[in-house]
């Protein structure tokens, strides 16, 4: 015990916190995969010669990037039931929100990635008789993705931290679990310190991994 803190309440809460962490990780992984897929489509739309498509993608990306995430989470939670007529749980609502929101950020990364592939590569694909889809699918996107892996992972680390915001709609992520456990044992400070350490350890380890990866990518290129 120090400063009157009692960390002995952590042990019985661990299973509960573990469930919260699992949800946070699951949300991160789903938002990452969904966000990268949707983001890549947005990037292709943005780079398309079709003005309408390109403008629509730009409006979407700019809008998402101009609104605080916390409001998007809240609005999706309130709007989806109104639009669909069915109430959705906080957990599912958070997943949809994060895919939609992160797609805007991933799309900017993928756009830079696509533009990092030289025009000569596109010409070579076209010259072989590939269609637009084939040139993109076999030649441009694999290289764009490979070039952008470190940046995509860095964005994912930010995403993992941002998932803690879902506590405002009551989704039971790691932070929400800590809040509940803290109230149960009347020891909120200890709980918040503990989850802060968990977030730090996970994010710090991941960002160190990204740094190493970045060096390797630089060597390969």
């Amino acid at each position, binding site marked *: 015990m120090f400063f009157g803190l009692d960390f002995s309440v952590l042990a019985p809460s661990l299973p509960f916190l573990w469930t919260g962490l699992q949800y946070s990780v699951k949300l991160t992984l789903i938002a990452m995969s969904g966000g990268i897929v949707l983001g890549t489509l947005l990037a292709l739309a943005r780079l398309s010669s079709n003005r309408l498509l390109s403008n629509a993608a730009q409006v979407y990306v700019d809008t998402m990037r101009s609104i605080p995430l916390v409001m998007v989470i809240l609005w999706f939670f309130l709007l989806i039931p109104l639009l669909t007529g069915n109430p959705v749980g906080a957990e599912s609502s958070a997943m949809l929100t994060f895919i939609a929101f992160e797609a805007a950020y991933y799309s900017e990364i993928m756009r830079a990635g696509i533009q990092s592939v030289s025009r*000569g590569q596109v*010409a*070579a694909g076209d010259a*072989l*008789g590939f269609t637009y889809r*084939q040139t993109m699918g076999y*030649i441009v996107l*694999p290289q764009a993705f490979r070039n952008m892996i470190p940046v995509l992972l860095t964005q994912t680390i930010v995403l993992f931290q941002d998932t803690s915001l879902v506590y405002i709609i009551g989704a039971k992520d790691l932070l929400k679990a800590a809040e509940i456990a803290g109230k149960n044992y009347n020891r909120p400070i200890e709980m918040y310190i503990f989850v802060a350490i968990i977030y730090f350890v996970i994010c710090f380890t991941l960002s160190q991994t990204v740094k190493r990866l970045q060096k390797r990518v630089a060597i390969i290129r």
Partner: protein
Amino acid sequence: MIEISHVNKHYGAFQVLTDCSTTVAKGEVIVVCGPSGSGKSTLIKTVNGLEPFQSGTIMVDGISVGAPSTDMPKLRARVGMVFQNFELFPHMSITENLTIGQIKVLNRSKEEAMATGLKLLDRVGLKAQAAKFPGQLSGGQQQRVAIARALSMNPICMLFDEPTSALDPEMVNEVLDVMVELAHEGMTMMCVTHEMGFARKVANRVIFMDQGHIIEDATKDDFFGTPRGERAQQFLSKILSH
């Protein structure tokens, strides 16, 4: 085989190609030369539609390039192209580079594509490099693989866009040797190049371009004997003087 007639191309007010017309008959080897910025690379890229043009027509094997009704990927698959910077796919091995077009565009089986690919790789003298990646090969080797990749599609003609310009001098000949061999086998070829030795050896005709115009379009002997225009004479004296 290739008929270019009255082709004009401009970027805004800047005219890149002005009223260019020429033909390449089956089995002919045409060398296109001219100072940089003369439009020669642009001209060769209009032949398979990599560069669009505003007016005029280009027919390849009777099919109109860039016409709305033309299936461009299908046409391009029949026209081989070799680029200045090789443009092998860096994320694929040499064999994957040689087979992907055959498999995805020509719908050949993997085994068939592999057999064709390896045969062509052997032909350009690089059978031992099959498992490597483009980044592990020298420039000259990469360009020979690029030629093999184009040939893997069984093209009806080949376009070469300054194939030796990005190479170190000692690697130029290994690429030219492959091209000469190809010419001797009767491949229809249109080559943008400054290699006048190559032109002397295998070209049927030489086209000289300047500022977007085709200024000379002459048989090899006429071109090297007495190029009529002053511009062509100056150009030749500059590149042949040493």
